[in-house]
């Protein structure tokens, strides 16, 4: 068991090296959200926007929003695209022929996605604090950590599940973007959706990005007392973890389709 854990950690290190050297992957999953943070914060400044029945400074709302969007990229998008290509190239087949237990290898892939997520969270929070004076919710820091953990778990599991429906490497970014981009608008990542039609908000609330963004936005606005968890958001993310894990177990494929 101890050896398998070491093996998983070593795999995380190899996956991280491979990830950061792959400039396309590193750009789209890491640099792009950071760039969006700069662009939107510079364009909109800290003008107040309407949110949750009151008015809040835009950047204070945008930092947790873009963090939620970034987490979708480092987990769901990254895993789905990476695994689709590993499967197509036969890397997964070689893994199957070697003694490493399959779960250890998958833990390595997911662990690497988590490491990227942590790096992204640190960078986004730092830029928000230093560049735009957005104070992270230190009093409710455990709540923020738990929200990030819940989101990372749910979206990683969903990434493993969705990659079985992606026919090949070329289709992977198209499939994930087609899902993530519209949802990010509905989920209030880019601007508040308080005034959006009810149907749009209900659709967004049915997917995991909205509770992740909303839960963290409330924390940043210092609106959540105690440990910092909004119940409705946490419960929905928890439900998505269950759905994601079941779907991943049910649908995950090691071999390309048609073999």
């Amino acid at each position, binding site marked *: 068991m101890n050896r398998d854990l070491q093996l998983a950690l070593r795999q995380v290190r190899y996956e991280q090296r*491979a990830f950061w*050297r792959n400039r396309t992957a590193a750009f789209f999953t890491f640099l792009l959200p950071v760039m969006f943070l700069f662009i939107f914060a510079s364009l909109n400044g800290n003008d107040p926007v309407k949110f949750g029945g009151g008015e809040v400074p835009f950047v204070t709302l945008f930092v947790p929003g873009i963090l939620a969007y970034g987490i979708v990229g480092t987990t769901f998008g990254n895993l789905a695209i990476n695994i689709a290509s*590993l499967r197509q190239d036969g*890397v997964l087949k070689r893994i199957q022929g*070697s*003694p490493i237990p399959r779960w250890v290898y998958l833990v390595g892939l997911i662990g690497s996605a988590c490491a990227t997520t942590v790096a992204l969270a640190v960078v986004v929070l730092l830029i928000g604090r230093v560049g735009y004076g957005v104070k992270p919710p230190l009093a409710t820091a455990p709540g923020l950590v738990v929200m990030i953990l819940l989101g990372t778990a749910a979206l990683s599991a969903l990434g493993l599940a969705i990659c079985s429906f992606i026919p090949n490497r070329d289709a992977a970014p198209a499939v994930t973007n087609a899902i993530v981009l519209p949802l990010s608008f509905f989920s209030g990542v880019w601007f508040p959706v308080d005034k959006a039609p009810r149907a749009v908000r209900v659709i967004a609330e049915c997917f995991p990005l909205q509770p992740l963004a909303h839960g963290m936005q409330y924390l940043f606005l210092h609106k959540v007392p105690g440990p910092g968890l909004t119940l409705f958001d946490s419960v929905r993310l928890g439900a998505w973890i269950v759905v994601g894990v079941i779907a991943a177990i049910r649908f995950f494929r090691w071999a390309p389709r048609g073999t």
Partner: protein
Amino acid sequence: MVAIEVRGLERSYGDNRAVRDISFEVNEGEVFALLGPNGAGKTTTTEILEGFRSRTAGDVTVLGFDPASGGRAFRERIGIVLQSCGIVETLTVTETIGMYGSYYEHPRPVGELIELVELSEKPNALIRTLSGGQRRRLDLALGLVGDPDLIFLDEPTTGFDPSARRSAWRTIRNLCDLGKTVFLTTHFMDEAQELADRVAVITAGEIVASGTPGDLGGRDVAPATITFVLPAGTPADALPALPDGSWEVDGSRVTLVTGSPVAAAYRLTGWAIDLAVDLEQFAVTPPSLEDIYLRLTGHSEQAAVL
């Protein structure tokens, strides 16, 4: 000791019987080559032995394990070199070998493998910068990194230039000197001839012949071919008479297919010395493994069409 034992192996995909009741054994320390055209069942058979595919019926034992349920302990002892296995593009040669080595209890040292497959100038090159031949050599290194007792080689030298093939062959022969067992599939008959202790030919899911490269399909008793260039100014009907068979003359090129090449060559060379003429490009050629292979596979292809 027997490394691989296959009895009555069957694999069906729906109505298609891809592998039909085949049986064979591979002894420890032996190089065994499975030959056959595309779609003959070679890959299916090999992947069943490697544990990638399940079987429909039959008994398979590989190093004492049932590959379908051998799990980690089984995979510790085999090495697989498959054409369809990819490598992560953004790691270096050293990192890649180190990573796959970490999956095994007793990996071979990275530096030793890099030297063995002649990638010493490229230890820190990213995989995406390697040529096709260099990748295939890295494949071989990854197949050997766990110091396996049994190595599966799927067309190991496809795409190699002649000198790289020679050096890959040397590497494979070195494995045998270390007591490893090698299960090889190949399209190249010279490769089978060069490396294999025993070969089996599979077509349409059935093994149609097996033996050593020397006696496969009756090669050891099959007729040989004598060829030479007819000396200038000598008419074809001046050639010596033969106990059986007859000279076939095509322009100046003379061919004889005969079951008694020694007697025929004796008459021919005696005749040439008596007349003081030279026999240019004189050669006595036993049937090649390729001739036998084409006869075995061509025949059954016809049968399949009928």
